[in-house]
Structures are given as structure tokens and as C-alpha cells.
């Protein structure tokens, strides 16, 4: 990958994250997101995907996590010491895993909270609201329902729509497929693609569903216990034998006994 160039919106350089001063979660993660790109961050449970995203959005601090080494550069500015609301103002917002809508607020109120940091007046916010409704017509139908009573898919749409209301340059999307039917997952990813193409929003997306993530992303990183073990263009990753075997569930040489899998030595690489 090229070093921090003009077309890079986010670069994470060799960060180490420690929770509670003792638990080392990320052991030197580096990645870059190009302007207008969709980059997937893949890996199993506990690999450190969410931690990486939260390190970028600075939500780590609320969970007693700290970035102890390395730095994070968003649009040419080091951002580790900023608060989450500073980052949202600068155009980087996270959609958290598990949706986290405000259950007692209506869908519309949820969306409006996304515009909290904006200072450009009611008319502009209203226009953004309309735009969100055109991307997510379902939200318009449910605008007056309490978010807590809407379906999982609607909540995910609400969470993404809420993030859009801040007019971001970049969305950190954490596990959008969680707990959703395959059809809905497809629908959500289609919208992500559309937002990327039409609004120019860059995405860094953490996913367990490697298959769909690599179909929509342009580039992918694979995390394993706090380290990036593999990265490459999405297409190349899809073709990669290791990825096929470990993450896509199709073995390289047809059926294989699990006994052999156990002995298989994983090829790793560490990004410095």
C-alpha cells in the first residue's frame, strides 16, 4: 500500500490498544482507507475488528481502552486525542455493532440526533432528512414509531441513516449484517454501495460475513488475534486459498478431513 498520500482519507499506523491497562488487544495494526473507498476489515470473533473501529472513532476511551502506540491520521490530521464529537464534526462517524438505536425515541428523532453536531440550520437538516428517507423509504413509513419497536433491519437502517445525518466523509460500519436475514443483509450492502458511489462516503467496514463483505469492498484486511495477517484487493482475497479455506468455507482441494485441517500451518504475515 502507498504511504499517506493525498487520496488517503484514513490511515491507521501500527496501533496498539490496551484495555484496562493490562489487556493487550491490538498488537500493531496498520491499514489505510482511500478516499471514496470501501475497505473491509475481516476476522473471527475477538480478532479486534470492533476495537480497531473504536480506536479510530475514539469510543475506546469510554470502555477503558487506550491507544498506547502508533497513530491514526484522518484527512491529514492526527486524531487520537480528539473526542468522539470532535471526530463527528470532522466527518468521521461510527455505526456501532448491534445498531444501538435510541429505543424510546421515534425513528425520526433518532435520525435528528445524528445532526446534533451540525450548525448549518434547520433547513439544511431537513434536506438531509429527506435524503435519508429517499435512501431508506422504509424509515419514512416508520418515522413515528419508537425505534425500540421496529425490526432489526429497520434499526440497522435507522443507525446508518442517523450516521448519514451528520454528513460524514467516512462511516465506520461495525458488523451491519449482525442478526439480519440474508436478503436484508444484501439490501443494506446495496445501500452502502449506493451511498459510496453517489454521496462519496468512504467506508471502513468490520464484518464476519467475509463472503458478502469481499463482494462489496474494494480492499480487505484480515485480522487474527490483534494482528493483520493478510491484506489485498478484495478480488485477490476472494481467490486466495487461505481465505477460501478459513473464511469462505470452501477448501482449496475439495473435501478435506478435519484431522488434516488441524495440522495445517497457517501462513501469516505481520504488517509492521
Amino acid at each position: 500500500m502507498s504511504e499517506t498520500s493525498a487520496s488517503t482519507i484514513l490511515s491507521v499506523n501500527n496501533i496498539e490498544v490496551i484495555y484496562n491497562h493490562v489487556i493487550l488487544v491490538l498488537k500493531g495494526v496498520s491499514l489505510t482507507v482511500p478516499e471514496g473507498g470501501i475497505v473491509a476489515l475481516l476476522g473471527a470473533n475477538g480478532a479486534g475488528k470492533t476495537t480497531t473501529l473504536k480506536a479510530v472513532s475514539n469510543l475506546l476511551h469510554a470502555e477503558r481502552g487506550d491507544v498506547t502506540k502508533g497513530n491514526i491520521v484522518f484527512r491529514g490530521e492526527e486524531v487520537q486525542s480528539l473526542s468522539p464529537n470532535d471526530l463527528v464534526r470532522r466527518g468521521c462517524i461510527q455505526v456501532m455493532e448491534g445498531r444501538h438505536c435510541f429505543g424510546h425515541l421515534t425513528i425520526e428523532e433518532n435520525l435528528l440526533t445524528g445532526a446534533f453536531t451540525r450548525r448549518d440550520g434547520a433547513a439544511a437538516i431537513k434536506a438531509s432528512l429527506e435524503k435519508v428517507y429517499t435512501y431508506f423509504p422504509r424509515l419514512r413509513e416508520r418515522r413515528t414509531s419508537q425505534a425500540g419497536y421496529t425490526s432489526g433491519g429497520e434499526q440497522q437502517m435507522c443507525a446508518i441513516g442517523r450516521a448519514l445525518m451528520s454528513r460524514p466523509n467516512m462511516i465506520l460500519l461495525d458488523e451491519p449484517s449482525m442478526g439480519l436475514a440474508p436478503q436484508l443483509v444484501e439490501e443494506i450492502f446495496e445501500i452502502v454501495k449506493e451511498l459510496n458511489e453517489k454521496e462519496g462516503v468512504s467506508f471502513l467496514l468490520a464484518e464476519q460475513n467475509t463472503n458478502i463483505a469481499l463482494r462489496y469492498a474494494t480492499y480487505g484486511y484480515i485480522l487474527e488475534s490483534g494482528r493483520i495477517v493478510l491484506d489485498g484487493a478484495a478480488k485477490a482475497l476472494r481467490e486466495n486459498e487461505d481465505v477460501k479455506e478459513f473464511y469462505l468455507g470452501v477448501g482449496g482441494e475439495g473435501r478435506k478431513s478435519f484431522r488434516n485441517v488441524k495440522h495445517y500451518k497457517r501462513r501469516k504475515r505481520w504488517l509492521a
Partner: protein
Amino acid sequence: MAIFIETVLSGLMAGVMYALVALGFVLIFKASGIFNFAQGVMCLFAALTFAGIMEKTSVPWPIAFVLTVAVMVGVAWAVERFVLRHLVNQEPIILFMATIGLAYVLEGVGDIIWGSDVKVINIGLPSGAVDVLLDNFDIYLDKLEVFAALIAAVLVGFLAVFFQKTRIGRALRAVADDHQAALSVGISLQTIWVIVWSVAGFVALVAGIMWGAKSGVQFSLSLIALKALPVLILGGFTSIPGAIVGGLIIGVGEKLAEIYVGPMVGGAIENWFAYMLALAFLLFRPQGLFGEKIIERV
């Protein structure tokens, strides 16, 4: 019949006073999920400061009022800076314990600055009986209590609009629902907490003045917070109208119980009736009359 009406009316008025205190609790609970044990002491502290400023500087009361509001905003800021900021994302019980500590600190500071003798608040609030009722129907109703009711009504109207219609109000409710998500959309918890504690401080000041005018500013003022507890359980911790209705029910209930049931059991029901009522509510309707139901999707 006159006795009955008089009892109900005086109960209603006492209820309004409870409701004023309960309002402060609801505000902080709604916006941060913290049960603020120090709310009663905040009433005491605000009233003490108000009375103290008037006593020492003899400025007219509106100026003293504004100064006291400024002091309460300062308190809110300090609470956020030195207590809440360090406890983000902790268990509610830990935050609750912190407010107990806060209660002692505020009480001590109030004592040190303004002394511990009973202060009188005399700012020309109406007092005495409402003559029309006393002359025509032989019913005694204190003007101060009627006035308190009016103030409470205005406050509630103002707060309801603030919570439902404004950007800040929406953010307050968002924070109450989900701290982390609120952080993630760029709502600054620090600002929100200073705002909500300031508003609660303001409400405490109003309640403190009303109670202070009624019975003098003294330590026992902080104990009315305990009466606010059953009010909250009845009305629901998250509902502003609930605090009002809960206050009224408790006020009327305890007065009626004292008059009509009291003689059967030897009196002094007034002191524990509210808690019995709260207990019954906890058994059958834990979220209170108007509290937000815990949303469960099936």
C-alpha cells in the same frame, strides 16, 4: 364536607411541593440514568445560598436569585468535572454511590459557607389564607401553596416543551437511552451532563425557595428528598407528568389517610403512608403510573 374538601386541597398543595422536589430527580434520571441521591441536599444548598446571599449582601431578591442560579450551574460543572467524567460507562449503582458522597459534600460545604442556623426566606411571597374560600366556604387554603402550584405548573410546561421539542432535549433523551450510541453520533456527554445538572439545580432552587418560605431553610429540608422517593415510584422515574401526578396522589393520600384512617390506628399515618403506597406499587406496577415501559421486542 368542608373538612373533606379542605383536606384534599391541602393535600394537593403539599403534593405540589413534593412534586417540585421529585422533578429534579426525574430530570437527572431521564438524562443520565442516575438516581441522584443528592437532589434533596441540592434543594437545601440552593435555598441556603439564596437566603445567605440575601442576608449578607442585602441585594434585592431577583439578583440573589440569578446569583444562586449561577452558583448551581457552577455546582453542575464541578459535579461533571470531578465526579461524572471519571465514571462514564460504570454501573448505575456506582454512580448512585457517588451521588451519596456528593450529598455529604454539598451539605458540608453549605454548612461551612452559610452556617447552620435556620434561615428565613422572605421575598414577599404571598401568605395567609385565600380569603374568598375562607369567607364563603370556610375552607383554609394557604396562598403560598397556591402560588407554588402555579410555579410548578409553569415549570412543568417549560420542561415538557424543552424535552420534546428542542435539539438539546432530544439529545438528553438520547443520552438517557444509550450513552455509547449518544457518544457515537457526536453528542458530548460532558456538555449534556452540565446542562441537565444545571436544570436540576434550577428546579432544586425553586423547590428550595418554596419549602424555605414555608418552613424556614434548615437541614430538614434535605430530608424531603426521602418523600420524593415514593412520589417517583408512583409516578415513574422517567416521567415529568408522573412526578406531578405522583406528588399529588401522595399529598392527598397521606392527608386523607391521616384524617380518616389515622384515628383507627392511633395517628401519625402521614409519615409512613407514602412508603406503603410505594411498596404496593413496586409489587404491581414497578415502572410507575407513567414510567417508560422497558421495551421488549418479541
